[in-house]
């Protein structure tokens, strides 16, 4: 699915190079290809807070404001996720992180298998205990499938730090879920 998105985006950029980059329709089309992925990253990074909608809107409007600085030879997805990451950090500077994450926030309906619900809750509980920056790394990797190199570009963290964060979270989840394989 990621490859489909990236080939679609490269087509968009070959068109945008010739056409007006500031065209509303072009920007909206680009956004629609990654909006759910972006929204979920923000939502989960701030522990399913009600402010997710505002942070998402701020991210998109900021991307729109600085669209003229974007170079089409780079990845649009990486670029906009960098803006989202900074907006989440800014959000945490202005607001204290949620001290507890409730199941009601994660699950919008009751139609869940109890065991699966417990497993999912535990994964998010472990993620919640991470520091905000570490949590962002966690969701960039597991939610959006970015590589270590891409996460390094987005967050500004070194690859070694990223691997350490991911290893720690993985070990915690494995310990709870009882899975024994090692990540290398």
């Amino acid at each position, binding site marked *: 699915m990621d490859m489909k998105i990236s080939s679609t985006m490269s087509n968009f950029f070959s068109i945008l190079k010739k056409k007006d980059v500031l065209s509303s329709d072009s920007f909206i089309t680009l956004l629609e290809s990654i909006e759910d992925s972006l929204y979920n990253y923000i939502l989960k990074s701030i522990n399913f807070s009600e402010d997710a909608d505002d942070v998402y809107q701020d991210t998109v409007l900021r991307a729109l404001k600085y669209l003229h600085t974007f170079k089409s030879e780079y990845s649009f997805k990486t670029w906009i996720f960098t803006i989202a990451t900074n907006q989440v950090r800014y959000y945490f500077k202005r607001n204290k992180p949620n001290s507890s994450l409730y199941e009601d926030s994660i699950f919008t309906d009751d139609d869940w298998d109890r065991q699966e619900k417990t497993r999912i809750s535990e994964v*998010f509980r472990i993620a919640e205990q991470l520091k905000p920056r570490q949590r962002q790394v966690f969701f960039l990797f597991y939610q959006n499938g970015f590589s270590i190199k891409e996460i390094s570009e987005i967050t500004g963290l070194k690859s070694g730090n990223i691997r350490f964060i991911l290893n720690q979270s993985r070990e915690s989840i494995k310990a709870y879920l009882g899975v024994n394989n090692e990540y290398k």
Partner: protein
Amino acid sequence: MNTNKDDQMISKLVCRVDRSVPPAVKRELKKAIYKTLENRKTRMKRIFLSYQAAAIAVLLVISILTVIKPFTRPKPDTSRKFIVATHRTVDESGTPLNRQVYEIRSEFEIKKKKIKIIWFQRKTIDKGRKS
């Protein structure tokens, strides 16, 4: 890309609670995007037109000054007389002699400054040569 089974399992659990962007948020955002980009285009047009107008104004001023300037110079208050004098026109028998230019006299007067310049040539007068 997650190659490890554990990573895939965790990824699957994380993505199980994915949500779509709320329609109200999408609508508001679209409105804001169109408004921002339209405002930006209008602003750019205005800036472009103001530069054009400024350039045209500058060109107008330069051309006006270039054309008008010669007409604003004060006319010199001079009067010039050109006198051609000849010595004789007929000989003793009354036969007309060839008219000869004997003297060319030019008088310049600048009344304001009370200056009078008289310039004359005599004797050998050749139009092409100064004597």
